[in-house]
């Protein structure tokens, strides 16, 4: 196959990938979009096989390894529970990162194959591209591993900070640039390995200071990095499919990070520099004065909601932890039988990754046209009888609008306090990740339901 024809096929895969993302603009077109993505991938792999052309024993090995990886991937895809989606995505990011590192190493060791020159005499431009690809890939790899460990709960979600952290990161970044310069000048392979090793370290250092609740930003950011790494390798391999995809994924991740930061009213740098987040227990304990709260049980909640004409459900990370989405949907079904109008309100940063709550609700068979984003539904709280807050906290805290001293001041919140009564399903009065008390707990129209989200919801169903 001629190089030109090959390039055209890669361009076609690139276009199909664009269509795959375009499909996600609505749930109806999304499935077709995914199919386009699969076809694009099949074309890219197919023409690569044809271009290599020598169907030797090595080719057989390629197929075997492809099958091993594919089977493993398919197995994971079918087994993974929807609540574990953030970890899965973080894990997948790490694989893309490491794959980019491996391809870069391969290209460095054997540059003739990719027309990049010969060992010790690689084209300068290619060297820069492959070291950038390898460096970003390496920090995506270790960064995603840390994110994975934090999401999985193997590592504590609280931020790890130390004095001079940011200067160290800055210094390492400068060293990396210096090393790339030296690599181009001397072509000595030691520098190449050092670049990869330092990048591994940078990945760890970048993610450890970021708290558990900032994970939506971290995941989006790593998504973006994995794209830039792929694009870097795309330049090295002069492959347009890879360049197009890398750019798409890179900008996609960047936009998601931006949306997530905006959802918390924090600047991107503020999140990256970390130190916020985690559960700072000591801080919350000492400021605690006993304020009266209205404590309710499942029967009270059932009574309130049954007699309401409209109910808005506000799910949060707590729902995911308790796996309460199925019970929630049953409760809503029971309410609907009683003629209650029920909708769902999702805050942009609810959960541990963008769109986390939507997927869980979809899993529980909640129709997507009953689920609304913050801007769409926020005005409806004023007309709603009951807001059922399940596992969410900070995103409902009115202090974000009233107290400029508060760490969450300015963050867009769901106006839960405007509804006639508020039901809070929570295990205790403890504050959310921002470490601040929620005023809403002590209001007259708030009823606290102290229990596990799933258990409480099930109890409510019983008494309906």
């Amino acid at each position: 196959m001629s190089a030109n024809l090959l390039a055209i096929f890669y361009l076609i895969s690139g276009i199909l990938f664009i269509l795959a993302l375009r499909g996600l603009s609505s749930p109806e077109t999304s499935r077709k979009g995914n199919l386009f993505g699969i076809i694009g991938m099949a074309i890219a792999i197919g023409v690569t096989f044809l271009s290599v052309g020598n169907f030797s024993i090595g080719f057989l090995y390629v197929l075997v390894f492809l099958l091993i990886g594919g089977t493993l991937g398919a197995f994971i895809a079918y087994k993974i529970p929807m609540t574990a989606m953030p970890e899965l995505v973080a894990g997948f990011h790490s694989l893309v990162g490491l794959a980019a590192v491996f391809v870069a190493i391969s290209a460095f060791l054997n540059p003739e194959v990719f027309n990049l020159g010969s060992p010790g005499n690689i084209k300068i431009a290619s060297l820069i591209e492959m070291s950038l690809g390898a460096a970003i890939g390496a920090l995506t790899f270790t960064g995603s591993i840390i994110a994975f460990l934090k999401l999985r709960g193997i590592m504590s979600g609280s931020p790890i900070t130390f004095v001079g952290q940011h200067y160290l990161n800055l210094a390492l970044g400068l060293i990396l640039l210096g090393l790339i310069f030296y690599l181009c000048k001397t072509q000595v392979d030691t520098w190449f390995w050092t670049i990869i090793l330092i990048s591994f370290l940078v990945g760890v250092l970048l993610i450890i200071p970021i708290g558990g609740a900032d994970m939506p930003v971290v995941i989006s950011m790593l998504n973006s990095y994995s794209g830039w790494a792929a694009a870097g390798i795309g330049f090295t391999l002069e492959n347009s499919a890879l360049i197009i995809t890398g750019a798409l994924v890179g900008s996609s991740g960047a936009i998601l990070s931006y949306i997530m930061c905006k959802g918390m009213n924090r600047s991107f740098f503020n999140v990256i520099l970390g130190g916020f987040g985690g559960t700072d227990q000591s801080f919350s304990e000492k400021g605690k004065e006993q304020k009266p709260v209205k404590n309710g049980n499942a029967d009270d909640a059932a009574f309130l909601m049954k007699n309401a004409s409209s109910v808005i459900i506000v799910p949060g990370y707590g729902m995911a932890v308790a796996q309460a989405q199925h019970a929630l949907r049953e409760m809503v079904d029971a309410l609907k039988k009683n003629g209650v109008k029920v909708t769902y309100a999702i805050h942009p940063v609810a959960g541990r990754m963008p769109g986390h709550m939507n997927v869980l609700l979809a899993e529980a068979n909640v129709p997507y046209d009953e689920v609304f984003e913050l801007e769409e539904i926020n005005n409806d709280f004023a007309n709603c009888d009951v807001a059922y807050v399940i596992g969410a906290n900070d995103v409902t805290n009115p202090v974000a609008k009233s107290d400029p001293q508060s760490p969450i001041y300015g963050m867009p919140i769901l106006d839960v306090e405007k509804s006639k009564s508020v039901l809070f399903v929570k295990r205790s009065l403890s504050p959310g990740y921002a470490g601040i008390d929620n005023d809403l707990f002590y209001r007259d129209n708030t009823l606290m339901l102290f229990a596990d989200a799933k258990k409480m919801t099930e109890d409510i169903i019983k008494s309906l």
Partner: protein
Amino acid sequence: MEIDPFVFRLSIFILSIFIGYYVVWSVTPSLHTPLMSVTNAISSVIIVGAIIAALAGNSVNIFDTANIFGFLAIILAAVNIFGGFLVTQRMLAMYKKKKKEK
């Protein structure tokens, strides 16, 4: 005077960033999780490089160091491609519209 092919690739890259920007802003927020898993899958098109790397060189020794890194990258990328597309499909299959009330 001839234009360096690098400039063409850079053009593709920059234009794709713009396409990505507009396409991703049109993605509905409720599908942000599938967006992440599908971008994951498509960025594994890096497997193309891995295949070339794995099959590079003479057929005398197919497990040269450079090839081994290629093979490893194939496994990693394949996990991602199959895992990413399938899990996206699984998620998207769950998004349903409201059925007619009984």
